[in-house]
């Protein structure tokens, strides 16, 4: 069963979910960039791009995939103090 779950995750056949990070007035821009590089392993350029998107557009999608994995990411983001939510990617 665990193996099936893992396979499902690899193939991303589960309904895709996304992690949205929302703008907030307190978190430093440099901190948000660091969280993205540190936790997701993004390049600095990608992290800065997404941080700017959060800052200027109010939100950015930082990850997509199966629900369980995305819930882990949201839990981690809350640990870092970022405002993050899960959304079903049905657009």
């Amino acid at each position: 069963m665990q193996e099936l779950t893992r396979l499902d995750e690899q193939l991303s056949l589960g309904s895709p979910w996304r992690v949205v990070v929302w703008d907030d007035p307190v978190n430093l821009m440099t901190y948000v960039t660091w969280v993205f590089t540190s936790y997701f392993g993004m390049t600095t350029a990608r992290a800065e791009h997404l941080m700017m998107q959060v800052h200027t557009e109010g939100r950015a999608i930082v990850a997509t995939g199966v629900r369980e994995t995305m819930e882990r990411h949201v839990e981690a983001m809350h640990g870092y103090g970022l405002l993050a939510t899960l959304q079903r990617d049905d657009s």
Partner: protein
Amino acid sequence: MSVGWSKGENGLVARTFTRDEVSVLESLASGLDETLDFVDRRNDDDVLSRLLPHAYDDAEDDAAEEFAAHTAARIAEGKQLRLRAVAADLQTPSGEAVPRHRTRPSPGIEVVLDDDGTQRWLLALNDMRLGLAERLGVGREDDEDGPRDRGPVGDVLDWLGWLQSGLLDVGMGVR
């Protein structure tokens, strides 16, 4: 911009805190630590709502509650452990004996951080800033009035921001 942080050749990041700075940080850390004991009341407390926010949009309250039931205590505990680690760093300066000065007061406490320590401090400082900002109502004020005088608590909030910004710059190379 470093507001006192420096990186040695050994890769460790250090800063000396004055007694006043130590007592401010200790007080913030212990206050937030106590607040985080009340995870179950997260919906009734602004600081807890901010530190343990909803994971789903309002339309999916059930999912948000289920997520919180599984994760809120764990997230809160992680925050508490980091706050306690920061408080401990400020008490025992990295295992080295506090220099005893007989003729003048101690110059302060030197904190020396490795990568893990730096990470713990960044997250803990961030939680302190979020909690303080929430109590001050930052973000709920009318921006058209310009920056409001937030008094001494606002000064502490600004100082925490500089401290965190400097640690990101010196410790993580993010500026």
